[in-house]
């Protein structure tokens, strides 16, 4: 029983990271119909920036606060670039462009930070085990679950109660109609993109103490993010949340029982969803 609680908590902690990544991927696609394949790059970039800030300041919290802002600055530049390929019926160009951007980010991070494996220790407050009823569990993953929950609730409130959220939902539901009614869809898309990038970078910093920072992390994460949005359905935050939970738990179970084939378990999950719900679990309704 306690064993399964461990598996569950590991899965939830992983799901929190996946959600931070996939929420932006899903939102950017929903609003702009752009599949942002450089999203994994921003996750990794966030992690590396967090590493450097930690080395510089010696404080995890500072790194956690500043790295997403730095990534946001990079996002401002790439947004100007990606803007070239916004628009309907440009799937090929968008894929080429963002895939290319992913290559550029991947090689530039290798150039600046080298190819060796880097790591960041968890902050001292969280670097200890915590008693949790019958079991003792490390505090840091619990912190990840907390952050994931807070971000999920925050995004839900943002989408539900603010003008920005209303505009995002309008632009995702029917771009032309939204524009005709005076919603500045391009501007909404720009803000959504920046929000997504910042969330991915936040995920990257949070992941730094859990996952090893090394070349290839960006594409591993991108693939996981894509699987999450395929399972959950593209374009909705809720879909990303459900997808992240399923993938996180499947990964945790897979790692426990079939250590080398965890990814194959996830892939099987995706294949099943594609066979029975081709648009994803929440794809039909936004």
């Amino acid at each position: 029983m306690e064993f399964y609680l461990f598996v569950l908590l590991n899965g939830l902690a992983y799901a929190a990271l996946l959600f931070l990544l996939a929420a932006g991927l899903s939102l950017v696609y929903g609003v702009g119909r752009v599949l942002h394949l450089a999203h994994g790059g921003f996750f990794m970039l966030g992690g590396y920036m967090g590493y450097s800030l930690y080395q510089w300041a010696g404080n995890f919290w500072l790194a956690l606060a500043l790295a997403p802002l730095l990534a946001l600055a990079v996002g401002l530049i790439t947004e100007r670039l990606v803007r070239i390929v916004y628009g309907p019926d440009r799937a090929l160009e968008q894929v080429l462009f963002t895939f290319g951007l992913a290559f550029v980010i991947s090689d530039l991070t290798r150039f600046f930070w080298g190819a060796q494996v880097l790591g960041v220790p968890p902050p001292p407050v969280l670097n200890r085990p915590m008693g949790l009823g019958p079991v003792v569990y490390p505090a840091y993953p619990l912190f990840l679950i907390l952050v994931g929950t807070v971000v999920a609730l925050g995004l839900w409130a943002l989408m539900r109660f603010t003008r920005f959220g209303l505009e995002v939902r309008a632009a995702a539901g029917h771009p032309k109609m939204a524009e005709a009614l005076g919603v500045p869809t391009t501007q909404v898309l720009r803000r959504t993109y920046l929000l997504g990038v910042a969330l991915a970078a936040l995920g990257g910093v949070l992941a730094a103490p859990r996952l090893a920072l090394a070349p290839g992390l960006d594409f591993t994460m991108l693939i996981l993010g894509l699987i999450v949005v395929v399972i959950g359905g593209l374009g909705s935050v809720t879909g990303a949340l459900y997808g992240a939970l399923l993938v996180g738990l499947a990964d945790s179970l897979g790692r426990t029982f079939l250590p080398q084939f965890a990814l194959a378990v996830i892939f099987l999950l995706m294949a099943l969803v594609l066979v029975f719900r081709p648009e994803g679990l929440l794809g039909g309704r936004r």
Partner: protein
Amino acid sequence: MSRWFPWLLAVLALAPLLGGAYALRLGTEVVAWSLAATALAFLYRTTGLVSLGHSAFFGGGAYAVALLVRNIGASAYPFAVLSAVLLGFAFSLLLGFLGLRSHGIFFLMLTLACSQIMYILVKQGFSGITGGDDGLPGIPRPPGLEEPWAYYLAGLALLLGVLLLYRAFLASPLGQVMDALRQNERRTEVLGYDVRRLKLLASGLSGALAALGGAYLVGYRGFVHPHDLSWTTSGLLLVMAVVGGMRPLSAGVVGATLLIALEAFLSSYTDLWNLFLGLFLMTAAWTTLRSRRATHVGA
């Protein structure tokens, strides 16, 4: 085929034979990558689908041949190549079956995810069989083609055969329907064609051709490496097809020739090859968009 294209093939045929061992090596690589890039261009030409994971078929074909030849011996080559091609076909069909049920963007994501999973399975999952990170060395050439120039000429003949078949396919009634499919999917469907089956067929053929390219590469190089399955390989194949212009028959060959030459040139100066590859992809996207805008204005 445009008028100058046979001349490019002639140059491809002669230059390595006159240019020494290094040119011969590059020429053989051009042939292998041409086959796989043509597969990608074929898929786009016939269905409008873009695959981000053709390394799964390219590297998968290479691994299939490597495993069979290493375990049975060089005499198993015809069997090994045939199984690689059939596996590529079957696997691509399965992927199409899963990915073509809904919007085209799902196919894209599925191809990328699938190739990455193949990569990880080969690298870590089955490292006992596949050699893991080190790959599999010591694969002999097919009997009768041990000499590099003989192997190169055989590959060139293979490439020419594939291109002629491709041309015949495009001219056939089926090819015409596929052309219509790319231009307007809905209209083709309304005309009574089973669009999904056409897409599946094209996807299967493309996977088979990419596997053939991988099989040819491994026979020459003598080893396989997980890198053949990685996303870098998929990206390179995509750049090749795009640089060649995607739609023309010559797209794969032109793109592969340019990119292999460029890689050989650049890699003596810098190891940031992926950076350049990424910049190429972005420029290619930008120029396709511009040229499309230009045609829209003209029409």
